[in-house]
Every structure is written in C-alpha cells, then in structure tokens.
C-alpha cells in the first residue's frame, strides 16, 4: 500500500475507508461521507473524541480535552489524529454511528455534564 495510506475501520458499523498520507481521521471520514461527530476541528473542543486501536499521531490538541492518560487508554480527537498504520475506530461508548447520533447525548458522555437547554 502507498506510504501513509492506511485503512480505517469504523466499528460496530464495520465500514472500511482509507486516509490519504497525512490526513486526519475526521477529514478522511468526511471525504468518505461518514459523519463522525466534530466541532471546532482544531483540537480545542473535544466533541470529536473517539476510541482508536492502532498507532496514530495525536496532533496538536488541548490537554484538557485529551489527557496523556486518555491517549494511553486509546482515545484520540479525530480532527487531529493522523493514522500511522491501519486503525480501528469507534464512538466512545461503542455505539453504532447512525442517524440517531445526538450531539447533546455525546457531550454528556464526554464531559459528564448535560446541556440544560
């Protein structure tokens, strides 16, 4: 396979797509019409946090949105993470990504607090 081109497998949807060399997981997903959750796209807001199995370059992210401990536990911010090998990704609660995806619910999962409105 071309250098830097890796397979990304979204579970449990079991969809496989590829990233271009240096491309973030989010950019690759959106290019393949897969609507991974995302917000600022600059590593600052944390709403694009996902689980990842496999090596990634985590990129420049806010430490309060992705801690060193979370990096070790296999979380990344998809807007900044660039695969360094074939990787498997999933939403942080392991649920299927579909039309029922709810930003407010995902926000509660990530931040442990609910939006009131």
């Amino acid at each position, binding site marked *: 396979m071309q250098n830097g081109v890796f397979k990304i497998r979204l579970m449990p949807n079991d969809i496989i797509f590829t990233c271009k060399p240096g491309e973030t997981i989010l950019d690759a997903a959106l290019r393949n019409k897969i609507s991974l959750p995302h917000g*600022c796209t600059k590593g*600052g*807001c944390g*709403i694009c946090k996902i689980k990842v199995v496999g090596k990634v370059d985590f990129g420049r992210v806010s430490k309060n*949105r992705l801690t060193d401990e979370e990096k070790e536990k296999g979380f990344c911010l998809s807007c900044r993470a660039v695969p360094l090998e074939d990787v498997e990704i999933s939403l942080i609660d392991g649920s299927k990504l579909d039309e029922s995806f709810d*930003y407010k619910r995902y926000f509660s999962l990530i931040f442990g*607090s609910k*939006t*009131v*409105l």
Partner: protein
Amino acid sequence: MPFRISRLGYVEVKVLDLDDALDFYTNVLGLHLVERVGNKAYLKTWDEQLAYSVILTESDSAGLVRAGFRTVDPEDVDYFEKKLKQYEVPYEVIPEDYKRGKAIRFTIPSGHTFEIYYDIEIPGNFLPKESPDPWPRNLKYDAINPPKIDHMLITAPDPTKTIKFCEEVLEFRATEYIVNGEGQPVAAWLYQARQQPHDLAIIPGREKGLHHFAFHISSAQDIYHAADIMVMNDVKIDWGPGRHGITRGAGIYFFDPFGNRIETFGGYTAYLFDPGAKPIIWTEETMGRGVFYYERKLVETFLTVYT
C-alpha cells in the same frame, strides 16, 4: 442608578502556539500586535482607544483565562470592591499589569475570572486626534480588520445563579432572556453603559467555558467580506453569515487555530437599548429562532462545542 462599567475591555485567551496564533490573529483577523512579552501577546483593533483588548497566552489548552471590564469612572473600582465585600465574594487586588493600573480580580459563580479596572494606558486608535479621516489607510487589505471588541458569551452550570450574580453584584442589565418553563432565566444577554445588546452573555454549560468572544463588524458588506477572508484562509466556519433573533445582530461564528470560537458580530443591525425598558423574553420553544433566526433551530454545535 448610574452605569458604572463602560464595557468589555479585554479578554485573555489561551492558545497552543503563540507564533501560529499571531499569524492568525494579525494576518487573518487583522488585529495589531501591541507587544509580545514572554509567553503572552497583547493585541488591539484599529479603532481601540485603550492599550489593548486581546491577550493571547501560550498554554497546553485552549479557552479563557480572564476577562476585564473597564469602569466608567476611577472611583467605580472602589465601588465594586465594596460591593464584593458586601456580598462576601473573595477578591484580589492586582496593583498593576501590562500598561494597566489597579484591578480587582474575582471568580464569578460559573468559575470564570473577571477583573474590574479603570486605569489603562490610552494611546488612542489608528487615526489622528485632529481632523481624522473615518478609517486608517494602512490596514492589511486582505484581513478582516474589525474596529472594536464587542462581547463575550460564557457557559455556566447554574446559569440562573450566574445571571443573578452579574445583575446584582456587577450591575449588568438584561436586554434579553431565555426563560424555562418556571419563568427562570436560563440564558441572558447583559449590557452596560454602551447600551449595545450585550457586553456579556450567559448560556448553560460547563464551568469556565468560553463559548465565544466577538468583534464588532460595521456593515453587511463587511460581514460578507469577513466570510470571504475566512474561506480564502481555510478558516473553519461554525455558522453564518447569519442573523440572530436575539440582539438582531448579524454574525459569523468561526474558530481560531486552537478551537476558540470567535464571532464577527454585525452591530449595524442590532439595537441600542433604552435603560429601564423591559427585557425581551424568549422561551425554550422559540429559542432556536432566537439564536439562529434564519435556521430557526439551534445548530448542533451551539450547546456542545466550546473551549
């Protein structure tokens, strides 16, 4: 009761890399670098009279460090010091800071650090004091170049309590509220002496959250010009160009290179509020139209994305 705070004076915002930040804030946004001091940079807009209105601080996360509100008169700082004592709010006296004199610093119920000050150097804007033209001729032609800082929107875990604090202790007045089923304000747009729709707004969310800070944009043409510049520079736009029902302002939400949301806010469509007039009320049913007038619903990132 007189107004004792004139306006939002400065915001200090964290960035992950000061060089990259300065490239964005000066070349794309079009702010003027006053001075870089250690891990901080002080910036101002072209029509800012005071020494600076934005402080960028290199850190390992994005978000707000503090916000400063300037009083109308020097003795108003003492007035608020007494008021904080009266309400048993702990505060620090900061004798001086960069180009600024005494400030009182305290934490509001939502965890944000606020400062109230009067003394700050007043070098003037980019126009001569005598017989000025309406705008300076040496601005970067392909930058946004907003004339002024406008307002800040913060998030609060208990917005009703934070709104009450800002109204009672800091004497903000409300132009608009979103109220819940019990009639309690859960979001507020608060103003001071300038009588613009807001210097400070509060919505529900995490403590210490910075939803966005905003710069004034003077015309529809300038809003679209700003949007063009964002696209030319591949800036991530969150929403807009669009219009808010609340404040009636036109705006664009976009992100700096570290995820801090900024707004270019079209004050030209917004009102000036008559002191003493009753605040405008929105409900949870109508708030979608209130926040995003044309979309008539909240965009998904509004309540879930901020630093």
